[in-house]
């Protein structure tokens, strides 16, 4: 019983932390989108600032970087964080991490991270080409982020472990 209470307490605090992270991600997305909406301001502001990702002589690629790292990847991560938040809320309500919903949520988060690793550059470059078709010269960009890809695969494997935990939990619940 004490372990269950501990789990509930942890789930509650993690939910609060995830809520804060989701808020930060959304603020970041809105800020990046506002920068993308007025690129003149951005190039003026960062012209002499030595900004790592922004170079005026390489405008279109810099804009694609801003789109990928400022909008697309945070959007994917925010979606994963929202799923994680829902999962921890369920965990708080039910007092057990081994439920069918948890297994499904972990698998979905894993798939989302894999998609993030593969799709963030194609989506980002396509968005930039779509918005500034006359100014963008680069072709459709494809790049795979290996770290996110491995992380996604590990999370998917974790869902298999949780699935086994769920089966054991069911067995335990049906034992009197």
């Amino acid at each position, binding site marked *: 019983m004490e372990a269950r209470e501990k789990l509930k307490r942890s789930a509650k605090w993690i939910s609060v932390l995830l809520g804060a992270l989701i808020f930060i991600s959304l603020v970041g997305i809105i800020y990046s989108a506002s920068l993308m909406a007025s690129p003149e301001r951005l190039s003026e502001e960062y012209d002499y600032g030595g900004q790592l990702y922004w170079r005026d002589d390489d405008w279109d690629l810099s804009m694609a970087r801003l789109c990928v790292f400022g909008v697309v990847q945070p959007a994917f991560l925010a979606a994963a964080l929202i799923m994680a938040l829902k999962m921890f809320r369920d965990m708080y309500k039910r007092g057990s991490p081994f439920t069918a919903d948890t297994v499904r949520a972990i698998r979905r988060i894993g798939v989302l991270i894999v998609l993030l690793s593969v799709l963030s550059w194609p989506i980002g470059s396509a968005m930039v080409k779509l918005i500034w078709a006359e100014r963008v010269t680069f072709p459709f960009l494809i790049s795979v982020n290996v770290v996110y890809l491995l992380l996604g695969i590990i999370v998917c494997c974790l869902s298999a472990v949780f699935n086994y935990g769920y089966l054991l939990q069911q067995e335990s619940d049906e*034992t*009197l």
Partner: protein
Amino acid sequence: MAIILRLDRVMADRKMSLKELSERVGVANVNLSKLKTGKVSAVRFSTLEAICDVLDCQPGDILEYKRDD
């Protein structure tokens, strides 16, 4: 199912209600009801021991094996 629970029969012999049995065994009424209707997949030795102690019977009086045809 091959294993049949005869808890209701033993309880009737001892004239004991489900409520009384659940209080004396220390298992929730709902869970004992599931056990009575055979809706559980396993029984702990400790639970079986407590039931046999209260009903003053043997495990064989409660559990019965019936071969599946």
